[in-house]
């Protein structure tokens, strides 16, 4: 059996059985890892597969979170309505923003996505009466699903696991589909794809919408996880961390970023207990990874383990 599959099964079993042997604190941490894994994977679709580096991916994450927060606090507590709205809003934002951004490439794309995400941050931060401004919106209750309350760590964990699993499956379907392959082709050489008759812009646009959608899902999960949403959910630092998660795990591998997310979330929580200089450590990891392991952990692993398709980088 291929080692990758084995590790995958081990991980799945671990995640499913976790409530049996993990304390609530660590279980919560595992749930958080899943949420950010989803966020990172959504970015991988854009960065790893399509080759568009976005520093503004947090825009969709935050929009999903804020939509759910605002609705559930002010309008209605029904989960389905809020969740649907929480998915529709980031998709709409993606539709709008990416009309402006998809004409750009490389560093331009980095700057423009960053700047657009900042506009949203500015709204969240500045429109106090609507979004609560810097204070954010606390007191958001976890949903009731068919009579089951998600308030406890364990039910919420399984809720997140189910959502994660479904999204992972959907993303892998996308990635293996002709659309996914076309995206990889575009990443490798736009001109070639254009010559072959592909509408490059359209493919990139669709990819960006999908990426925004899944980021929105992660945002919805996160706002329920914390019971709170604030401008930090739209901050560039989170975009930057997502980028690091993708690169660290291995861009273009879909599962790599999930691993990257797990590593970063763990590090963030443990390092700060032992040193005050964990931001420096994070920066050093960034530098080291971009220098020596640009294909990420998964890239290294695949090289050393030999078997399996080579990571598409």
């Amino acid at each position, binding site marked *: 059996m291929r080692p990758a599959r084995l590790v995958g099964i081990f991980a799945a079993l671990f995640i499913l059985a976790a409530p049996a042997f993990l304390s609530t604190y660590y279980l919560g941490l595992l749930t958080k890892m899943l949420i950010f894994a989803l966020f990172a994977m959504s970015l991988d679709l854009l960065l790893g597969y399509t080759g568009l580096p976005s520093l503004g991916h947090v825009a969709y994450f935050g929009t999903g979170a804020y939509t759910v927060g605002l609705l559930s606090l002010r309008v209605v507590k029904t989960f389905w309505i809020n969740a649907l709205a929480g998915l529709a809003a980031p998709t709409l934002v993606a539709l709008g923003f990416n009309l402006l951004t998809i004409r750009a490439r490389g560093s331009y794309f980095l700057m423009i996505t*960053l700047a657009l995400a900042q506009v949203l941050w500015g*709204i969240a931060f500045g429109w106090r009466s609507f979004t609560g401004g810097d204070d954010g919106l606390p007191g958001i209750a976890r949903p009731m699903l068919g009579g089951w309350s998600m308030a406890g760590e364990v039910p919420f964990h399984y809720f997140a696991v189910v959502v994660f699993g479904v999204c992972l499956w959907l993303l892998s379907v996308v990635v293996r589909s002709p659309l996914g392959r076309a995206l990889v082709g575009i990443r490798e050489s736009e001109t070639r794809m254009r010559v072959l008759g592909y509408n490059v812009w359209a493919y990139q646009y669709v990819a960006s919408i999908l990426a925004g959608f899944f980021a929105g899902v992660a945002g919805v999960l996160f706002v329920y996880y914390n019971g709170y949403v604030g401008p930090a959910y739209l901050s560039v630092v989170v975009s930057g961390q997502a980028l690091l998660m993708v690169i660290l795990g291995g861009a273009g591998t879909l599962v790599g970023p999930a691993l990257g997310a797990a590593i970063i979330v763990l590090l963030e929580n443990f390092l700060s207990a032992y040193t005050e200089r964990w931001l420096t450590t994070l920066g050093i990891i960034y530098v080291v990874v971009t220098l020596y392991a*640009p294909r990420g952990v998964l890239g290294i692993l695949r090289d050393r383990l030999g078997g399996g398709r080579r990571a598409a980088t």
Partner: protein
Amino acid sequence: MTFWVVQALNGVSFGMLLFLLAAGLSLIFGVMKVLNLAHGSFYLLGAYLGLTVLRLTHSFLLALAAAALGVAALALLLERTVLRRIYGEELRQALLTFGVLFIIADQALWIWGGNPQTLPKPAGFTASVRLGDVIFPSYRLLVIAVGVVMGAALWWLQERTRVGAVIRAGVDDEEMARGIGVNTPLLFTAVFALGAFLAGFGGVMGGALLGVYPGADFEVLLLAFVVIIIGGLGSLKGAFVGGLLVGLIDNFGKAFFPELALFTVFAPMAAILAVRPTGLFGKA
């Protein structure tokens, strides 16, 4: 009348500061195709270095020199040891500078602490001047003057010197430039150091005006981005005009629409993106 004069002068002085910041960033990108995300950190470091030198020597000029040169030296080191290994890979270089941003921000917090500080102004510019009915800080007039002089100096460098010609060649077509014998690695190092020099210089000038504190690196970086998106990447003229535009729009916007204070800076940027994505004077 007073209102208009003060706001306009303010807009211009803020714009000059933005120009200094954006010029370095734009130059680095134009020649090396590197989006230096640590540019705000160079500003921050420049401001803090200037603060320390000012405390020790009470000389503003010395602080300017020390800060600008110090930051340039650090940038040189960075470029030589780390950045140059991944030439040509835009994204990797940009990400690497992002990591540098974290490191510098944290080290600065450790060394200089978290208190917001302002750099003392140079002797002779601490008072305000009276222009008829208007009272205006003389230091801000100095910033305007320095900005214009720097702009002229950079323009002269770019248009009238051999070095400038080499830089322009590098911006236009790096491969070709290398083909005709330009030592591109040296050029890159020099340009990166020059950009950092400008940022460090801007740090001291800006530090006396706006102060220095954790988080300034980010704010400054974002503003530089806005200026560059509006003015165009790789263009000195764009940085100048963009800086002035953003400075003026920001000031007047705040005065007339205080609730939309944060939009006044991002609105023109979004407009340019929609209409002319490469910026007013940018190269495609």
